[in-house]
């Protein structure tokens, strides 16, 4: 008996443990708290933002992938692999390329793909074409890209003309990462503060403060300068321009074609990294590095030029790619020799025979137009020889695979077939000096015809980065650079950013400097529709006069669609046909829990056209305006919120967003439909009640009377039970 008792006890204990163990599980749940955002507006970064954000851990890659986390520099191989990977993952948005196919180019020359491959290592520049439905649109045989749409303005962004300017690779690479991540993460809370899209690039709300949401400014003073540049809450500091609108980026890609070339000078970059500046480069080359490409300038007398077998002659070889474009090529200022090919001549002040860092490439002594004369009409936009043809027999420039790639890409990417470049705005990243530069570069004390407009956009970008805004030649005159050629030959609004404070910026600084410059590529893409018109209207304060009516001014009718009004300045050349209102609904969510706060589900953005209600029908800050109206088809049974925003297009094709880029207004809507008719409700009631109560009665009756032994009726049974109870 005792034995029995003991074994029974042991048995019960084991069984109890067995059955009760799962109960313990419920206690494991507190670990789940870690992911919950902390409440309260603290004065430390930890109190406001996620740890990932504070530590610059970006959401597009694993925490320990140092290159994709911008903790280590990209190399040629990693750039190429990453672009390929992104294109594979987002085939509807990115198309990967290396160089171009070639063919007959704009000046009648035959080229093949190898014309764009570096002299020394033989790689063509890797690049991506980015636009919505990139596999659609037209195919361009010369360039080899799909996704060419006549109605989408094109943008060219180029990094790393100069090999040692490593940050100029990182910034476009980050732009690509951001685009790829944004497509799948609209409404992402980049800084983990529980709010979404609250602080885009630049001063989006126009109050003169970059930190639009004020989260950085609310920190204790000791935390406000996280990047240590001496400016509290400046660009690149935590909490500044940190939560841009993914939706805006995605929308932009429906209307733009981006050509992003993060590493143009592959030869030079590899040489700088692997040979010239042994790692860590910021120690081995604190103030220098390899700048040019790897053209062989040394004349050996044995092999014809270029001498491919020869090792790089660091004193002589290479061409400065940003002096090799053809506009005003070789013109005097700053364009030092050697002008005679094959000779190595030292730069001014470098009498020891060290390399000539701004060598602009060999003179072209061919008769380019076949008229028997040589170099009689330099590329400068003028008909120098008065023969009726402009710029047809040039002195030089465009001699390098890399510059040929850019020139041919620019001239052959012609979606509209009008012979003009599609790139209405272009950006090239350089380093360093913290500047935004724009044409002209080749002349001092001169102004381009678009001086004011170029200066305006330059200032916008300078405000965004807190860099200095300068005409290029005010820094020092250059000839044959990327921007003079794009602006001078193709009228493209072209900007040069000089990023950061060193060629080989220390790797600890990659992430925050890249973040600081991230907005530039998006700004240049935004203005690509008509940069001149945009600048004109902004300078004259016209676009700022237009306004979208705020929610409290919206009159929700008892039935039908809801009218959304925009008041447009009389000075604004609107295109009613191309202007739209975009809207979406926020509805109660199906996932609503029974015990938690209200949860919402958001529908995708939809577009409705605008119609002109009438002139002088509304007032702007500068007088009467025209009222445009869109009717948004929100159901009468809808409850919740409607988000709306407007996109106004000019006759010149510029698009402007209201209330601002990436922002929208929130309108509360309530149930407007009638609650129903008495007759219909009565029928339905009878149907439902008949089914449920009728069914219940029948079932109970069958059950309680069907049994022969126990014929009781419901009421009796109830009574009996009640008495028992």
């Amino acid at each position, binding site marked *: 008996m005792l034995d029995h008792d003991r074994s029974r006890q042991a048995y019960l204990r084991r069984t109890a443990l067995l059955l009760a163990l799962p109960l313990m599980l419920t206690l494991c749940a507190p670990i789940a708290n870690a992911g919950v955002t902390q409440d309260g507006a603290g004065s430390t970064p930890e109190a406001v933002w996620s740890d990932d954000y504070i530590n610059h851990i970006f959401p597009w890659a694993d925490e320990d992938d140092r290159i994709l986390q911008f903790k280590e520099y990209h190399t040629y191989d990693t750039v190429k692999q990453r672009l390929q990977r992104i294109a594979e993952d987002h085939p509807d948005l990115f198309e990967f390329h290396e160089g171009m196919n070639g063919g007959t180019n704009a000046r009648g020359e035959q080229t093949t793909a190898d014309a764009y491959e570096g002299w020394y290592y033989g790689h063509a520049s890797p690049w991506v074409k980015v636009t919505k439905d990139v596999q659609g649109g037209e195919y361009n045989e010369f360039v080899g890209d799909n996704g060419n749409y006549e109605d989408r303005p094109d943008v060219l962004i180029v990094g790393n003309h100069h090999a040692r300017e490593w940050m100029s690779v990182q910034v476009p690479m980050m732009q690509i990462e951001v685009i790829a991540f944004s497509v799948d993460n609209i409404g992402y809370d980049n800084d983990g503060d529980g709010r979404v899209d609250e602080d885009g690039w630049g001063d989006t709300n126009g109050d003169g403060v970059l930190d639009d949401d004020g989260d950085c400014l609310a920190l204790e003073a000791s935390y406000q300068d996280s990047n240590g540049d001496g400016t509290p809450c400046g660009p690149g500091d935590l909490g500044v321009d940190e939560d841009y609108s993914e939706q805006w980026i995605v929308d932009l890609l429906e209307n733009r074609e981006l050509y992003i070339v993060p590493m143009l000078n592959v030869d030079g970059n590899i040489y700088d990294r692997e040979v010239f500046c042994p790692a860590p480069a910021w120690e081995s080359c604190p103030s220098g590095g390899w700048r040019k490409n790897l053209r062989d300038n040394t004349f050996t007398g044995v092999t014809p030029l270029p001498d491919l077998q020869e090792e790089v002659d660091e004193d002589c070889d290479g061409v400065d790619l940003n002096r090799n474009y053809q506009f005003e090529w070789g013109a005097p200022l700053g364009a030092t020799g050697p002008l005679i090919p094959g000779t190595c001549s030292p730069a001014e002040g470098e009498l020891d025979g060290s390399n000539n860092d701004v060598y602009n490439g060999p003179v072209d002594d061919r008769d380019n137009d076949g008229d028997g004369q040589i170099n009689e009409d330099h590329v400068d936009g003028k008909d120098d020889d008065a023969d009726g043809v402009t710029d047809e027999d040039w002195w030089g420039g465009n001699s390098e695979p890399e510059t040929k790639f850019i020139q041919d890409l620019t001239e052959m990417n012609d979606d509209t077939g009008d012979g003009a470049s599609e790139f209405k705005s272009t950006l090239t990243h350089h380093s360093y000096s913290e500047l935004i530069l724009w044409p002209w570069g080749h002349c001092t004390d001169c102004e381009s015809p678009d001086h004011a407009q170029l200066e305006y956009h330059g200032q916008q970008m300078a405000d965004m980065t807190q860099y200095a805004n300068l005409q290029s030649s005010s820094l020092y005159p250059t000839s044959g650079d990327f921007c003079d050629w794009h602006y001078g030959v193709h009228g493209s609004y072209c900007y040069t950013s000089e990023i950061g404070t060193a060629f080989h910026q220390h790797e600890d600084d990659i992430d925050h400097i890249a973040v600081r410059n991230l907005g530039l590529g998006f700004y240049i893409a935004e203005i690509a529709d008509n940069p001149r018109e945009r600048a004109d209207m902004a300078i004259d304060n016209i676009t700022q006069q237009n306004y979208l009516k705020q929610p409290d001014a919206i009159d929700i009718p008892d039935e039908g669609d809801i009218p959304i009004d925009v008041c447009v300045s009389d000075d604004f050349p609107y295109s009613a046909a191309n202007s739209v209102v975009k809207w979406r609904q926020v509805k109660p969510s199906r*996932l609503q829990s029974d*015990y938690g706060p209200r949860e919402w589900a958001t529908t995708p953005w939809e577009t409705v056209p605008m119609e002109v209600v009438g002139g002088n029908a509304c007032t702007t800050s500068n007088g009467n305006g025209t009222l445009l109206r869109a009717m948004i088809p929100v159901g009468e049974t809808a409850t919740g919120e409607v988000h709306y925003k407007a996109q106004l297009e000019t006759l010149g094709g510029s698009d402007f967003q209201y209330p601002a880029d990436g922002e929208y207004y929130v309108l509360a809507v309530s149930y407007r439909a009638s609650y129903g008719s008495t007759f219909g409700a009565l029928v339905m009631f009878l149907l439902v009640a008949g089914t449920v109560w009728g069914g219940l009665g029948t079932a109970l009756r069958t*059950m309680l009377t*069907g049994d022969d032994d126990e014929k009781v009726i419901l009421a009796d049974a109830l009574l009996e*039970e009640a008495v028992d109870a």
Partner: protein
Amino acid sequence: MSGQSDEFSGRLGLIFATIGAAIGTGNIWRFPRMVGANGGGTFLIPWLIFLFVWSIPLVIAEFAMGKRSRTGTIGTFRIFTGKRFAWMGLWTAWISTAIGFYYAVVAGWCLKYFQLGITGGLTGDGVDTVQVWNEFLQAPGQVIFFQFIVVVLTLAAISRGAKAIEKVNVLLMTSLMVLLFLTMFMALSMDMNDGTLDGALFMFTVDTSMMFDPEIWINALSQSAWSASAGMGMAITYAVYMRKDEDTTLNAFVMGLANNSISIIAGLTVLSAIFAVEADPLATVTGGSSAITFLALPEVFAQAPGGNVGPFLMMTGFFLALSFAALTSMISTVELCVRNFVDHGYERTRSVWLTGAAIFLFGLPSAVLWVKLDAEGVAFPQFLEVQDHIWGYGLMFSGLFIAFTIWRYGFLKWRAQVEAGEADPGLTGYLNVGVSAFRDDYINTGENDLWIGRWWDLLLYLAFPVLFSILMLSYFGSMIANTEDVWNPLNPNGLGIILAFWGVVAALFISFNKYLVQRPVFRNVPEGAEVDISLLPGGSDELVVQVGEVAPGFEHLGQSDAA
């Protein structure tokens, strides 16, 4: 106690107990929200259809299984699905118990509001219901006190077995109906003040343009699946106490239809009251369920006509009804767990105390942890919400396991007959023998007044898997689409946390299975009942014995109890 079988005293006992299990807060606070958020009367059509397509067929299966196995969920799966699948019963019991942990807290809230109604804490001038709610939720002592009361009441009701459960349920359910009718008529009269019954109109008006909105159908299915307790194992548990000649099919219909009846009454009450008072009633009813119940309704009830009497009656009547609904569901939840302990040789009283203590202790975190304020400044218990998020969806799998059991039984029976040369080895044979096997052998046993036809097979074999997939895919799909960082198991609103907890629990239970089936199971068989299990996959298990018998190798268990 476990030396003899235990059963309900009469038909109505069983009916009231099962109705009490089915009717809970889901009817009274979830249903009106679903009607509000899904187009009013439009919602009722799919909701009614799914009652017959989803809930009732599953309950029929549960009753049939429990009545034959005469054990709780673990024993039932062990007998019906096979020795290897006893863990499915453990899963079913666990999900129900895990829900019970926090459900006791929720039931406590209801009791608290009844008390507030009695003491007039919600009707005075300038009462801010948000403030009352926030203060209550942020006072751990208060929440725990009412949770404790609920647990004690539940234990008191069930400690003495089926007959006591039955009596308590009869009392509570009858009172609940009376109270609900009372508040419904008061709410209707409030709404009628302006000459129209807006709430009733809305609730019974079909908007044909929304009729085929998949969202509404999915929501109706979820309401049917979650509120009627189908597939939860409740019906299995209460079927254990069925008298030998009890009807399983009609009981299932009564349970389902009674559940929906109460939903309609509750819907009319809540919607009429809110439509009578609120300027934008639809915005109110589409808020969270607890927001409707504890924020909007007290405000609405306070405006009832009749001086102090009207508001007092509505407030106390409604919250008492709600408390009763929650209590009866609590009773079935605890009983489900207790039954499993008793099956495995535990004394009933001891099992009841063990389960009660666990429910109280493990419910404490839900009662007091992570009480947060939402964007509108309303408190909500996030720990409790996370528990609900994790285990609420787990219920669906309990239902799937029941369907799996039926599919498996049919397949095995067909295979056995093919081997014996009695059935056609082709598809025809399977359709003739296999598909209808469970229904032939365990539903249409001859004790039913209602014979179940081929339609039931169709629903279980075709409709169930399709609807199950739609429900899981649509919920998880929109969770994936709408939740940031959805796979991170640390995100309390994500899918990662659900899968992580399910994974751990399932892995644990599956590995426990072999220990579990080394224990004897004692079946609660009433005298003279026909409960042959020899044809079932677990029928040859010699450790499955009847109460009063001795399991081989476990002689000590039977003897000690008999002593």
